[in-house]
């Protein structure tokens, strides 16, 4: 064991400078949410809406200037729309910081609100420490794989004062993944009930936000919709570790929310 420690020390610091300092966040090359350019849409073209497996894209036949409704809370980042679009109106992008406090911030809007202060009122109680209870409500294990990555030396979540805790009694935030299967509904509710107030809920991954590919059917619900009140929504399939960190820091008012009207602020 001392040998391990020595060699570990000799290897030096492996942690990414981001988000505490400027520098690499380890996400370069990551393909995120497709970007929408309404002015490029061909008339009557519904190629993207037709291929979208989760109905994140729907047609608005009445509106010529903005023919599509896009709900990024339903997007599973499969990129089928970017391949199907003949006019490059849906383009691949590196946009991953899609954590939002309000569900409607994930729905595409022509002129997203930017006037309101981007930093909300700081929750001073949690400036330095946050305890999270995670519940898997039927995920594919992709979100868990990324949540587990948060404690690897590269992201090192502990340095930000954020911890996963075993007992819901000690938790401030309930972090839920998965579309909420019928069998996980009661255990999920029981975990929430066991948390002391004040308590908050974060939906991680498109399944938890809106149901994802497994939505409906004989076994699944529609994510946390109608199950628990949600304070932070983070779509993605799965969201990458940096997106999860960004959303947690956003919840703590230590980073600004970047998505407004389905678009990232530059």
């Amino acid at each position, binding site marked *: 064991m001392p040998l391990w420690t020595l060699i570990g020390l000799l290897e030096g610091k492996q942690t990414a400078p981001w988000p505490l300092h400027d520098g690499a966040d380890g996400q370069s090359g990551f393909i995120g949410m497709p970007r929408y350019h309404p002015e490029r849409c061909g008339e009557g073209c519904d190629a993207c809406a037709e291929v979208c497996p989760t109905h994140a894209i729907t047609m608005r036949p009445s509106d010529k200037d903005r023919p599509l409704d896009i709900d990024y809370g339903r997007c599973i980042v*499969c990129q*089928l729309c970017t391949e199907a679009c003949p006019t490059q109106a849906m383009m691949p992008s590196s946009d991953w910081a899609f954590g939002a406090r309000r569900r409607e911030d994930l729905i595409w809007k022509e002129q997203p609100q930017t006037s309101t202060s981007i930093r909300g009122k700081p929750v001073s109680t949690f400036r330095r420490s946050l305890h999270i209870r995670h519940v898997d409500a*039927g995920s594919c294990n992709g979100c868990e794989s990324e949540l587990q990555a948060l404690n690897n030396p590269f992201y090192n979540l502990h340095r930000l004062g954020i911890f996963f805790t075993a007992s819901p009694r000690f938790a401030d935030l309930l972090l839920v993944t998965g579309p909420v299967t019928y*069998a996980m509904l009661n255990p999920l509710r029981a975990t929430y009930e066991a948390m002391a107030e004040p308590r908050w809920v974060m939906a991680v991954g498109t399944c938890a936000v809106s149901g994802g590919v497994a939505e*409906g*059917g004989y076994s699944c619900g529609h994510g946390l919709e109608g199950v628990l009140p949600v304070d932070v929504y983070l779509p993605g399939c799965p969201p990458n570790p940096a997106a999860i960190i960004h959303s947690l820091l956003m919840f703590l008012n230590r980073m600004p929310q970047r998505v407004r009207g389905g678009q990232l602020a530059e």
Partner: protein
Amino acid sequence: MTVSQATFLRPQQLKDVASRLRERGGRMQMVYAWHPEPDRTEVRYVVTEPNQHAFGIWSCDALGGVPSLAGIWPLMAWHEREVMDLFGVQFLDHPQPQPLVLHEGANPVRPPFDSAYPHDVTLQAEAAKQSIPEIAGAEADVQLLPFGPVRADVLESAEFIFFYIGEAILHYHPRLFFKHRGMEKRFEGLSADRAVILAERVSGVGSVAHALAYCQAVEAAANCIVPPRALFLRVLLAEMERLYNHLHYFGHLCHTTTLKVGEAEGKLLEEHAKQLNVRLTGSRFLRSILTIGGLRRDLSPDGWLGAELQRLRRDFSVYAERMENTDSHLDRLITTGKLDAHVAFDQGATGPVDRASGLDRDLRRDHAYAAYGQLSTAVAVRESGDAHARAQVRMGEIGASIALMQEALSRLPNGSVRVECSVMPKAEGLGWAESPRGTLFYAVHFDSQGKLARVKIKSPSFSNWRVFPYTVHDSNMMDYAINEASFGLTIAGCDR
């Protein structure tokens, strides 16, 4: 990739045919059900015939029930219970006819795969507790510990029930399928290419293996010849998936033996591998690349991936050597969770678990697919069947996997990566892949419109969860977490 014609059997022939398969050295893989017509149910058996590339398919009409084969092939017990739950097929003389996939209290109005099951009616959250058999009288000192489904740390949901005295575990029962999402049913009615997105999301850390087995099943149904460059790149993707999964395995194994620096190092190497995945495909899980007939777009691994893999191989061999020289780590692994070869065979162990108990089986070599037949696939095997053997098999696989990738890179053909495939109505096909956790099957059936009528997924974790309790009964609490980590199981893949 050819599917041999299905052999039609009468129910009364089944036991006899299954016994003879065993005698001649074959192996039963799975059973599933489907509806060739709305009111007809058929069961299909997939079997390995000795020294044959193609799998055998037996078909039997399920009306009036079929005999359970669990007495001859114990691994069939779970498969049959799943078919009972989801299709309402009766397996006569089943040794344990309780529900498996659907929890007690779910009370479906009809079996969910029944064609008359009301569309999008969700099962009820369970009202009843599971009935657990009593292991001793009330006066005995046997304690009951139900752990889960919400467990400590970031883990998948499942409930583990221990009957124990002090440190000694008398009996262990994993209660799974809390995460059952009904994924197989979600495929129905989709077109073949659209459903690849779904296959990628059955088990997140097995995205490539699932999409690959699914695509190969459809390609078999369509008699589609995939271009050589796509076949080589598919091998590359499948091995990249094995690499990050196995690296994660060692990080987690060190976590359970409390080798903290070893845990950090394993997880850091996993992160490096995932970042290579992003550089190659834009996705940390290698998603959005595979499709029917090849790949959705070409990849450019030339000039950089080989060097990165070489570096990872060097880092891993130093790391592995240090683990193999750490007494405190080895003390917890050697003799822990021993799985005998005959139990592994009878109960259907697969992948590294199987190979650690001395069973030399690997689909990449024995039933070669993609470009594996043109490459040299070394298979790591150990005999002792304990947690250490399971770790050593994975160590061997990391080295072999990187060597395989280097060979594929050096011989990567040029040319297109996709060919158009069209599926005939009523076609069917079987696809398979050796996922990082073992044997994965997809069976697909198309309807008269050329849409998917039925997709059956046999995941490796379904097989290995069936086996795992045999190494826990009569062991002790201190070793449990280590033993579980040494199996490297996922729950999403098992529950589907």
